[in-house]
C-alpha cells in the first residue's frame, strides 16, 4: 500500500463536514482529511461523480455516519474492504431490534434497514457521541499508521479535554437558564437535546422528506398563536414555505442553526468551534 | 348437405338503450357463401364480430366447429405509425412462408407492395392486403366485412371472382358483408337481409323479390343499376303497403318471423323518416 511509505500522507475521506472537523483534529498533520459532500448539497438527489468514486477508491479510510444518513454511499461502500470503512451508526444488527431507549442509544445502537424507528442519525451533535467518534477514528488511524499511534492518542486526548471543557461550560449554561419552549423544523437535534436535557416543544415535521399533515399544522398554528413558543430554529438546508404561513404576524425569535457546520472554517479545533457556536446560538434563542 | 361450420342462435345485442341486434339466427356450411346485406347501422359488423367471438352478445349462443380455422378481414384497420412494418412483414405474422405470401399478394393484385410500409399504402390497397392476410390462413371459414370497400372498379370484380374461386378450390365457407348487391347476388348461396333483425333470407333470386327486401332497398335497386333513378317517397310507401301482401314465392322465407320482424323494421324506418320530415326540409325537397 502506498500509505506504508511515510513520504505520502494517507488520505481520509469524511462524508460530511462535522466528521471532517473531528477527523482533522485527530489526524493532525499525519493524514489528509477530505470532504466528500459539500455541506450545502442535499444528499437526496446526489449522484456520485467518477471523481468521487476515485476518491472513495483511493481513500485509506472512509468515515461516514451510516446508511440512515448517507444512503447513496451504502452501495459503493459495501464494495470496499471493511478495513477501509468506518461506519459510525451501524445497521447490521437489525430487525428483531427493540429500541430500548429511543433517544439514549449508545455506540452500537440498534437499527433496522427497513425501519428507522426514531433513529436520529445526527449523532455528531452530541459531545458524548463526538467523543466516541473521535475514539473510533483514532483507533483506525493507529491501525493504519502504527508508527504514529502516540500522536493520535495525544491528539485524541487534547480533543477530549477541549470538548470536556466546552461541554461542562455548556452544561452549566443550560442548567443556569430556564430554557423557554422552542420549535425545530425537523427532528434532527435529538442527540444534542438528550445530552443537555432539553426537549423541543414543537416540531414541524419528522424529517424534511415527510410533509406534515393538516391536523398537525393546525395544532401547531394554535400553539404558536397562543404564544407558548418563544423561539424557532431554522436550517439553511431546509426552508419550508410552510413556516412563513405559520409565523406570519407573530413576534418570534428565529435563529439559524446549521447542523452540517457549513459556516465553520476548516482548521484546528474545528469541532469545538462548531459546538461552541451551536451552543451559543441555541442559548441565545431559548433564553 | 355438409356440416355446419358455425351456427349462431338467437343473437341479441344491446348497447345502452339501443338494440342493435335482435334474435338473429345464422348458419354457415362448408363451401357456402352467405352474404349479409342491410342499411348502414343495421348491425352487420356487430353480428360479424359476435360470430368471431370478438364481442360478447347480450343474449344468444354461438356454436363453432372445434378447431375451426378462420380468415378475417376487418372493416377498418389502423396501425400506429411508430411501428415500422412492411406489407410483407405484416403478412408474415399470419404465415411464415415467403413464397405463400408472394402468392397471396399476387392473388389480390398487389405484388408490388411487398416492401412498402403498411401505413403508407392507399385505402384500396390496404383492403387487398387484408384479404391476402385472410387467405394466408388457408381458412375453412372466410369472414369479410365489406371486402371491396374503397377498391377500384377493376379490383372489385377481381376480388369477388377470387372469393368465388377460393370457395370452389378449398370448399371453405364464406360470410361476407356487402353493399354491392348487383355484384354479390350472382355468387351468393344465401342472402341475409339484416336490419337489427333478419328481415328475410334465402336464395338471392327469391330474396330479391321478397317484399321485405323490396321494402328495405326499394324495387329499383334490386334490378340493374345502370338505370339510375331514386324516388324517396315511393320507397317509403312500399314500407307500409307491402307487408300484408306476402306471397309464397320465397321458399326459405319464414313468414311468421318476417311478418313480426318486418313490422318492427318498418317501425324503425318510419321513425327515422318522421324525424327527417319534422326538420326543415331544405334537403328533403331535393329528393323529389
Amino acid at each position, binding site marked *: 500500500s502506498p500509505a506504508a511509505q511515510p513520504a505520502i500522507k494517507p488520505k481520509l475521506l469524511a462524508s460530511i463536514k462535522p466528521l471532517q472537523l473531528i477527523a482533522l483534529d485527530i489526524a493532525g498533520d499525519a493524514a489528509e482529511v477530505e470532504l466528500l459532500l459539500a455541506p450545502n448539497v*442535499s444528499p437526496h438527489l446526489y449522484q456520485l461523480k467518477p471523481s468521487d468514486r476515485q476518491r472513495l477508491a483511493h481513500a485509506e479510510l472512509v468515515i461516514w455516519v451510516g446508511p440512515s444518513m448517507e444512503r447513496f454511499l451504502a452501495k459503493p461502500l459495501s464494495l470496499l474492504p471493511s478495513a477501509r470503512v468506518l461506519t459510525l451508526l451501524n445497521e447490521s444488527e437489525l430487525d428483531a431490534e427493540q429500541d430500548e431507549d429511543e433517544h439514549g442509544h449508545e455506540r452500537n445502537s440498534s437499527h433496522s434497514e427497513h425501519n428507522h424507528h426514531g433513529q436520529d442519525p445526527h449523532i455528531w451533535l452530541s459531545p458524548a457521541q463526538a467523543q466516541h467518534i473521535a475514539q473510533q477514528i483514532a483507533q483506525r488511524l493507529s491501525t493504519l499508521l502504527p508508527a504514529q499511534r502516540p500522536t493520535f492518542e495525544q491528539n485524541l486526548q487534547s480533543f477530549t479535554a477541549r470538548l470536556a471543557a466546552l461541554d461542562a461550560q455548556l452544561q452549566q449554561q443550560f442548567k443556569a437558564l430556564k430554557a423557554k419552549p422552542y420549535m425545530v423544523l425537523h427532528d434532527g437535534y435529538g442527540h444534542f437535546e438528550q445530552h443537555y436535557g432539553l426537549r423541543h416543544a414543537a416540531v414541524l415535521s419528522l424529517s424534511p422528506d415527510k410533509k406534515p*399533515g393538516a*391536523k398537525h399544522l*393546525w395544532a401547531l398554528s394554535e400553539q404558536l398563536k397562543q404564544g407558548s413558543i418563544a423561539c424557532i430554529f431554522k436550517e439553511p438546508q431546509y426552508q419550508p*414555505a410552510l413556516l*412563513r*404561513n405559520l409565523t406570519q404576524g407573530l413576534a418570534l425569535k428565529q435563529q439559524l442553526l446549521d447542523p452540517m457546520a457549513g459556516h465553520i472554517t476548516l482548521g484546528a479545533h474545528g469541532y469545538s468551534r462548531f459546538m461552541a457556536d451551536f451552543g451559543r446560538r441555541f442559548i441565545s434563542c431559548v433564553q | 348437405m355438409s356440416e355446419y361450420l358455425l351456427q349462431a342462435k338467437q343473437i341479441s345485442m344491446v348497447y*345502452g338503450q339501443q338494440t342493435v341486434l335482435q334474435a338473429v339466427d345464422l348458419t354457415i356450411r362448408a363451401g357456402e357463401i352467405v352474404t349479409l346485406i342491410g342499411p348502414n347501422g343495421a348491425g352487420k359488423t356487430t353480428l360479424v364480430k359476435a360470430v368471431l367471438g370478438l364481442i360478447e352478445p347480450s343474449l344468444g349462443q354461438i356454436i363453432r366447429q372445434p378447431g375451426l380455422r378462420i380468415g378475417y378481414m376487418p372493416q377498418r384497420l389502423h396501425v400506429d*405509425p411508430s411501428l415500422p412494418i412492411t406489407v410483407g412483414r405484416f403478412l408474415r405474422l399470419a404465415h411464415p412462408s415467403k413464397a405463400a405470401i408472394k402468392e397471396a399478394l399476387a392473388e389480390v393484385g398487389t405484388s408490388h407492395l411487398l416492401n412498402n410500409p403498411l401505413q403508407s399504402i392507399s385505402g384500396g390497397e390496404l383492403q387487398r392486403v387484408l384479404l391476402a392476410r385472410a387467405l394466408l390462413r388457408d381458412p375453412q371459414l372466410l369472414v369479410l366485412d365489406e371486402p371491396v370497400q374503397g377498391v377500384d372498379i377493376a379490383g372489385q370484380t377481381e376480388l369477388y371472382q377470387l372469393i368465388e374461386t377460393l370457395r370452389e378450390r378449398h370448399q371453405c365457407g364464406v360470410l361476407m358483408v356487402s353493399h354491392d348487391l348487383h355484384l354479390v347476388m350472382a355468387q351468393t348461396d344465401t342472402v341475409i337481409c339484416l336490419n337489427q333483425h333478419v328481415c328475410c333470407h334465402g336464395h338471392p333470386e327469391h330474396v330479391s323479390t321478397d317484399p321485405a327486401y323490396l321494402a328495405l332497398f326499394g324495387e329499383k335497386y334490386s334490378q340493374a343499376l345502370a338505370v339510375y333513378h331514386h324516388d324517396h317517397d315511393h320507397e317509403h310507401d312500399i314500407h307500409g303497403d307491402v307487408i300484408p301482401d306476402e306471397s309464397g314465392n320465397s321458399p326459405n322465407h319464414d313468414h311468421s318471423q318476417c311478418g313480426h320482424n318486418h313490422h318492427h323494421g318498418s317501425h324503425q324506418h318510419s321513425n327515422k323518416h318522421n324525424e327527417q320530415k319534422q326538420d326543415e326540409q331544405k334537403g328533403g325537397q331535393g329528393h323529389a
Partner: protein
Amino acid sequence: MPDFLWLGLSAGLIIAAIAGPLGSFVVWQRLAYFGDTLAHSALLGVALSLWLSINIQLGIIICCLGLAVLLVVLQRKPQLASDSLLGILSHGSLALGLVTIALIDDVRLDLNAYLFGDLLAVSQQDLYWIGGVALALALTLWRNWNSLLAITVHPELAQVEGLPVERLRLTLMLMIALLVAIAMKIIGVLLITALLIIPAAASRKFVTSPEQMAATAIAIGCGSVAGGLGLSLSLDTPAGPSIVVFAIGLFLVAGLANTALSSVKK
C-alpha cells in the same frame, strides 16, 4: 380554522377549476405525460438559472414554455407518438439538469425545494398569482374553446376549414406549461399534474359532450381538493397526497357507479 387552511383551500379550488378543462385536453390529446415532463424540465431550468445566474423562478417558466414549443415543433413529424416524444424530452431534460448541476461547483441547492411546493404553504401573494394566471388561462380557453376542440377532433378538417392549427396547438401547450410552471412551485408538482389528469379521466364515463367533461372534471377536482383537505385534517396526512388519494377514490367510485348503472339498465 387557521388562515393557511383557507388560503390552501382557495388556491386548490382555483387550480382545480382551471385544471378541469385544460386536463380534458391533456386526456384527449394523450398528453398525460406532459405534466411530469414539465416538472423535469423545471429542474433543468433551476440548473441553468444557477449556471447563468438568473432568477430561478424565471428560469423555470422559460424552460417550461420552451419545452412546450419544442414539443409542438417535434409533433409536426408524426412518426413518433406524443408519449414517446414526451418521454424523451422528460428524461432528456432531467438528465441534462443533473449533469449541469454536477458541472457547477459548489452550489447550495435543495432541488426538491424548488419543485415541491405545498398546498398548505400558499401565501396571500401566491393566491393572487394563481388567481391572475387562472383568469388569463380561463379567458384564453373561453375564446378559443371551439377551435381547440376542432383541432383535437381532427386537425386536417380543422385546417381545411381555415383554422390556424399550428398556432392553436402552440397556444394550448403554452397554457398547460404556464399553469404547471406556476402551480408547481406553489402547490407542488404531484398535485398539479394529478389535478390535470385524474378529474378529467374520472369524468369520462359519465359524459357525452366535451363541455360536460370539462365541467364534471372541475366538479371532481374541486370535490377532491375539499375532500382531500378534510382527509388531511382528520388523518393528519400531508395535504397534496391526500387530495390525490381522494381523487383516485372518486375515480374508483365513478368506475363502480358506472358499472352498476349499466348493469341496472340491462
